[in-house]
């Protein structure tokens, strides 16, 4: 079975995000970019499937700017076998919308014929949480979202989903689109010998036009703003004063 893992290059989640002065988006110039953490979990899971003998090839695909190469090399260093880079823009600030991404992935699936797609549940930059679901609709495959456990059993898979208030276990038919959640696994470090090997692994470069997909945006970003700064706290001198203040604001 072949596993397809889409990976997105996003602003590193430990980097302090700054909004561009004109409010048109987040400033990404000279900012540390990394693989979307949920996608990293998806790559790890794909490699584990291969190590367990349940998959025989892991293909990572990334859509965006040329620099996404770095993100794909990380996936290859972790253990993916080959990579597909779809260069869809030259501008790091241009975000390819979920529907366009899903259509590109659909075209890649048509070519690659994977048995499963393992994707992050969402990208931490725009938090859309939509691509996996759209891809399931376009392919007509089953979908399992927010997955924290995955057990492939021949032509179906038993998956545990993290839902509000608990866990839900469902059975989906293969092939399937799985979007993974935080607790599925702990991704491995990339060892230097594997990083060097990754540089020699094949990486195909395509464009959306090659795949026959129109990526013209359908959404308009009206504005981007910093979260409201938290109001300053106050220091109380005694427990009595604390209780009094809490009563004042109706907290007790």
């Amino acid at each position: 079975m072949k596993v397809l893992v889409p990976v997105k290059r996003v602003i590193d989640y430990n980097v302090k995000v700054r909004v561009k002065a004109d409010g048109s988006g987040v400033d990404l110039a000279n900012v540390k970019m990394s693989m979307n953490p949920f996608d990293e979990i998806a790559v790890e899971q794909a490699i584990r499937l291969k190590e367990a003998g349940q998959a025989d090839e892991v293909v990572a695909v990334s859509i965006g700017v040329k620099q996404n190469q770095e993100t794909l090399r990380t996936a290859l260093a972790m253990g993916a076998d080959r990579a597909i880079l779809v260069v869809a823009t030259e501008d790091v600030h241009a975000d390819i919308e979920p529907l366009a991404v899903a259509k590109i992935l659909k075209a890649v699936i048509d070519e690659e014929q994977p048995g499963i797609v393992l994707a992050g549940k969402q990208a931490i930059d725009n938090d859309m949480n939509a691509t996996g679901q759209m891809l399931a609709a376009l392919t007509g495959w089953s979908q399992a979202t927010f997955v924290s456990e995955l057990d492939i059993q021949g032509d179906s898979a038993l998956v545990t989903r993290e839902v509000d208030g608990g866990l839900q276990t469902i059975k989906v038919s293969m092939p399937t689109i799985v979007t993974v959640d935080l607790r599925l696994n702990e991704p491995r470090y990339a060892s230097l010998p594997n990083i060097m090997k990754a540089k020699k692994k094949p990486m195909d470069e395509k464009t959306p036009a090659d795949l026959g997909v129109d990526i013209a945006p359908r959404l308009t970003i009206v504005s981007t703003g910093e979260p409201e700064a938290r109001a300053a706290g106050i220091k109380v001198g005694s427990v009595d004063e604390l209780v009094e203040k809490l009563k004042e604001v109706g907290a007790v």
Partner: protein
Amino acid sequence: MELLDQIRASIGDKYVVTRQDAQAWTRDWTDVYHWQPLAVTRPANTEEVQAIARACFAQNIAMVPVGGNTGLTGATKAQDAIMISLDRMNAIREIKPNAQVAIVESGAVLDSIHQAVDDHDLVFPLIFGARGSAMIGGNLSTNAGGSNVLRYGNTRDLCLGLEVVLADGQVMNLMSELRKDNTGLNLKHMFIGAEGTLGIITAAVLRLYRKPLAYVTAMVGLRQLEDALPLLNRLQNETGGGVEAFEFMPRRYIERHIEIISGADEPFEGAHEVNILVEVASTRASDLQPDESGTPKLQAILETALMDMISNDKAQDAVIAQNEAQRRSMWARREAAAEITVGFPGAVDTDVAVPLEAVPSFLKQMTARVQKIDPEGYEFYLSHLGDGNLHYTFYPSDRSGRFKEPITEAIEDVVLELQGSFSAEHGIGLSKRNSMARRKDPVALEMMRAIKTALDPKNLMNPGKVYPEPEAR
């Protein structure tokens, strides 16, 4: 008591803390020393510090300044003394981005300085595990070191100016921002590392650096410690002196860390005797640019150099952090040192420095010596290897304390033989006073006492610390 009333009148009742409320100030982080202060005073500004000093000076009462209380030598022990906590004087008064200086009050928590300067894309490169509690006044008073001394120097090197309140309440204004100022003796350096024995640091001018745009952080496994310096030098050469930290953890450290810290994991597939955490950084945007394989330039330099060393059997393995989360988890391993070493009664805990090339020799000699003294004992160490600073701890086979002196003497002997220091970055406080008496050059000690007497003739500033009693010699 009359003194306390006088202080209350100067700084306000609620900022003079006594009895139960002063609990937090009756011990330090190591829990080795315990004491009962007369009171803990919490002044809001320099004038209030002066008022406290004047009152204590008039009545001959000892004063012990305290910051985050994270010291490791018992330097804040304050039995029957007035403690002067700088915690309320925590303002970051000004950051001058172009001049790259920050003007801060001494109670500013180190981490809050880090955060404040980060907004200007600057760093204050004094980094160590206790940064979330330690205050800059204490960092200055102990001339704290940490993990970035290799590149940026210790606290002394990061300080341009100071404001100090003397024992009699006078303020000495040394708040210079100047890089060049040869107007007589540079008095600020006397207070840096004086551990509060000469005066109370109330404000400082700090030197800032441009925040690196790119960091590359790796763990490297080596077969033997002798391979470490060639690795450091090679990385320095190839990155134009870009190595920010070069930390050594032996196999035993890795094992103990995994045992104690939940969720901790092996850094490599195999086990290695010598584990190096190395971080290189650059402020050049070009170092972020990807090469043809997509790897940012700085990372490619490190990868190529390390891979070459692995191919030539000069290194065994390496892992490179692929994102900030992995970088932080590599650092978390190193910074858990304090948590995984304290808490063993009777342990001999040291903070020594030896010349860079002498670290392997120090460890070999120590192993030989401790085996003669207490063969069942247990050695544990780690090192800021890039600056020759070792934290060598010996856990004796029993808790009687009978091994403490012979082991301490053995360590000091080896350190002296290698022309090292018995206190590299933690200072003297109470715990290293015997070592001072035994090992410090006697003329140097005499001069230190002369300076102490000149600045603090009544011996009220943090008495009983740093300088050994003359008769103890």
